[in-house]
């Protein structure tokens, strides 16, 4: 479920920094540079980039533009290869026991175990299929506000980093305190000095 269909969950960001005068040309160049790149046929662990709201395969924005009136709307796609910890543990143990038998030694050193674990992780990563995730966003240029359609802290961190890399601007999560400062600027001092109330 998402912004474009069914129910949606979202947080808001305030965009800080000066938007370039020739914004749409700047955005076209930057979005293209940070468009999603497929890793299905490589062994890369993770790929992060922009795709259109039309679907996860439209990284060229040929099916749908990111421009919608005064809004910039698109989706963040993250493809990640993952190795389940239990699977990694199993294959490491198997390899350790094979080496112990082969070399006829009582046990392996710590550095050997670390090496086995890293090699096994890389081997299993290469066998893993990248798991895709999509998170939609809509940037109101008139209000300097981005609506990001996920409440996952990990997705939000990924979004903040990609947004900064793409546009050279900071997207700062809007929380009640910062929103209060924006909604009631004349009460900023009072808000800053508030302490928790005992209501009942």
């Amino acid at each position: 479920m998402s912004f474009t269909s069914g129910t949606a969950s979202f947080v808001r960001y305030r965009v800080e920094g000066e938007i370039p005068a020739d914004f749409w040309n700047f955005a076209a160049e930057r979005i293209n540079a940070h468009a999603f790149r497929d890793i299905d046929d490589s062994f890369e662990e993770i790929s992060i980039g922009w795709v259109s709201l039309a679907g996860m395969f439209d990284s060229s924005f040929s099916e749908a533009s990111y421009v919608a009136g005064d809004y910039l709307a698109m989706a963040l796609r993250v493809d990640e290869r993952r190795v389940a910890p239990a699977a990694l543990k199993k294959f490491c143990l198997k390899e350790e026991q094979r080496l112990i038998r082969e070399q006829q030694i009582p046990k392996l050193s710590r550095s050997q175990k670390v090496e086995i674990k890293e090699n096994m992780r890389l081997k299993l990563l290469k066998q893993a299929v990248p798991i895709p995730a999509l998170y939609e966003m809509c940037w109101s240029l008139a209000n300097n506000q981005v609506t990001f359609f996920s409440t996952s802290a990990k997705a939000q961190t990924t979004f903040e980093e990609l947004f900064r890399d793409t546009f050279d601007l900071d997207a700062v999560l809007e929380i009640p305190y910062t929103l209060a400062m924006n909604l009631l600027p004349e009460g900023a001092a009072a808000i800053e000095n508030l302490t928790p109330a005992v209501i009942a």
Partner: protein
Amino acid sequence: MDLVDLIKEKRYLGQEFLTWLWFKSEERGGSIFLDDSGEDITVVFEKHLLLESGEGDELEKVICQGLHAGLNEARTGLAMGKKIEQARLLIGRETYEWNVTIRASLLEFRSVRLPKTMNPAEEEEGPDAAAGMILERISLVESLTGIVDELFRMFLKIRTEPEKWLMESKKIAAWVEEMA
């Protein structure tokens, strides 16, 4: 102070807002007059409430659920000094209705059901229709956040004026005592 510290230190602000909003919605039977817009809207707390008290190791949570329940346990929780961290709301303005779960400390909008505006069978296809659909949905999202912001501003205007807040908190305390 960085954002992580601000979230931790000021989490009560959103929780007090939701607690006030519950009182405000029941004060006039589910209707709240928006000062700035000069109109009545509907705000109904329904089905689901999460209350919290304390922090760190002392953090206590109570979940209260039930269809149109009086949410008596939640009221008892308020009487014991707990605050609302999450609530499922129905918000209505003119002919539009939104269902939303608001998480107070981070001001997250969860499981938002937007008002129905057109029968899907009547919707057209193509790039223009897609852009139109995006603009329509973001407009509905912004209408919801606009209402919540206006309610939050109303709360802040009272909360930041000691005399007004003293009177309001007495009313809230009486409401909690009456219902618990």
